[in-house]
């Protein structure tokens, strides 16, 4: 088994990592990574945070140095797209006209920015943020006094708002829902971020839907809301979520459902094809559901699952899903997912910008959102993973250590 060629489609966080795990777990056969971006695998999280603010250099983003791929003899073909998978022949067709045979295929094509369903997104000055190239283009526009309109009040939107303020831009965030982070966080956290950004000069339009982006001479000049209001601006960032790059998998007949469907070992319904990262709909055993996560920790966990399954290495222990976000001097860390929640417990004082919100199902913690509260995050994550009940009174009392709240 271990001398067959493994082909990885997508040179992102998941694709780059799985190649490293395959070698670490003892695969000795050839490995090839095919990536359509022109650069080696890199980290996307800083694109809206430290990198955008100018606090990290280009090669700080690289997942691994160029020498890694050479030393590990991982062939990396960049600037090339996979265009079709022939499952019967075990080959992948590439955009340069060549084709590549595989023993095992790992799909790691990630996701792309969801387009805004409104006219005008092709105007100069309208951006999305998914790739280093997107970030480069956006950054060049964020200078003091520029009016930045961010469509979408999710994590990427709020991180860019914070970075934009740090660069001196005037920032407005337009969110369709009545509150920020509506799809991903509880109300207490939404309200806190609203206030924190507001106090730092970010304006918000909540419950506002964009009906068109207007331009002058091919360059964006305003965003128009569905009730007719016209908001003049110089730059627009569309941050309304991401959609999985599943078309290749779908065309090859693999099961897809807003993401390529995989099991707990990252296997698709073809025994020779795995899928990992933002591309996948994966099982979440802790919550008895399948879900599409968009996070580095999940991509890494699945990269380990696939590499272990292929090489016969011991499977990684199941992880509690987690995520982080940096905005201004705030570190937000989230563990778990708020499914089946019947009440919330707030620990600490949001006014002090140091607090945590626990999403509870009875005496079990389902998820924790921790702002500048690493102990609540780390302790909460352990309790979630162990399915250990907690004392609600103790959890609500910041004077009692997170190590003492379990019952």
């Amino acid at each position, binding site marked *: 088994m271990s001398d067959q060629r493994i082909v990885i489609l997508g040179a992102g966080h998941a694709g780059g990592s799985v190649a490293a795990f395959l070698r670490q777990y003892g695969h000795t056969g050839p490995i090839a990574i095919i990536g359509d971006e022109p650069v080696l695998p890199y980290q996307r999280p800083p694109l809206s945070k430290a990198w955008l603010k100018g606090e990290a250099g280009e090669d*700080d983003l690289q997942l691994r140095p160029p020498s890694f791929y050479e030393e590990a003899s991982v062939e990396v073909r960049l600037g090339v797209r996979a265009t079709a998978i022939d499952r019967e022949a075990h080959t992948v067709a590439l955009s340069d006209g060549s084709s590549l045979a595989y023993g095992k295929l790992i799909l790691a094509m990630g996701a792309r920015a969801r387009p805004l369903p409104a006219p005008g997104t092709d105007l100069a000055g309208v951006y999305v943020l998914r790739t280093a190239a997107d970030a480069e283009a956006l950054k060049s526009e964020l200078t003091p006094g520029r009016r930045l309109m961010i469509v979408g009040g999710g994590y990427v939107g709020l991180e860019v708002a914070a970075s934009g303020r740090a660069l001196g831009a005037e920032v407005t965030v337009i969110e369709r829902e009545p509150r920020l982070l509506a799809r991903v966080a509880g109300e207490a956290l939404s309200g806190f971020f609203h206030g924190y950004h507001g106090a730092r000069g970010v304006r918000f339009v909540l419950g506002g839907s964009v009906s068109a982006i207007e331009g002058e001479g091919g360059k964006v000049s305003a965003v128009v809301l569905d009730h007719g209001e016209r908001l003049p601006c110089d730059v627009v960032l569309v941050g309304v979520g991401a959609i999985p790059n599943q078309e290749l998998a779908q065309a090859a007949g693999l099961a897809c459902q807003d993401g390529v469907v995989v099991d707990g070992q990252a296997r698709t319904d073809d025994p020779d094809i795995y899928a990992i990262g933002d591309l996948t709909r994966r099982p979440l055993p802790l919550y008895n559901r399948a879900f599409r996560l968009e996070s*580095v920790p999940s991509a*890494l966990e699945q990269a380990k699952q696939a590499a272990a399954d292929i090489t016969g290495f011991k499977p990684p*222990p199941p992880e509690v899903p987690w995520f982080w976000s940096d905005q201004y001097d705030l*570190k937000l*860390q989230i563990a778990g997912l708020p499914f089946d929640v019947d009440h919330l417990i707030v620990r600490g004082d949001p006014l002090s910008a140091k607090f945590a919100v626990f999403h509870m199902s009875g005496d079990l913690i389902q998820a924790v959102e921790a702002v500048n509260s*690493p102990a609540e995050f*780390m*302790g909460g994550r*352990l309790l979630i993973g162990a399915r250990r009940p907690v004392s609600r009174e103790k959890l609500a009392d910041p004077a009692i250590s997170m190590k003492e709240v379990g019952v």
Partner: protein
Amino acid sequence: MAKITYIEHGGTEHSVDVRNGLSVMEGAIKNNVPGIDADCGGACACATCHVYVDDAWREKTGSASAMEESMLDFAQNVEPNSRLSCQIRVTDALDGLIVRLPEDQH
């Protein structure tokens, strides 16, 4: 620039030159030193860049911030000389630094 020696749990040593301004974690990643996972890329959010600082170097590497301290408090196999290597900035003063790596970062 500082020469840093990373000693894997199994005893394998890697002595590499690390540019000022990088973190001790980045020095390992950029030189293909195994044993530091750094899942969050240096955001002080994951505690998978845990190292043990050689006793002779504890003073020069400074002390952990409250944030780092709390993260470490919940990591595995923590010792008094435990640090998160993404939080140690490399300067000339760290030339010769020795850090040891834990068996596993999870």
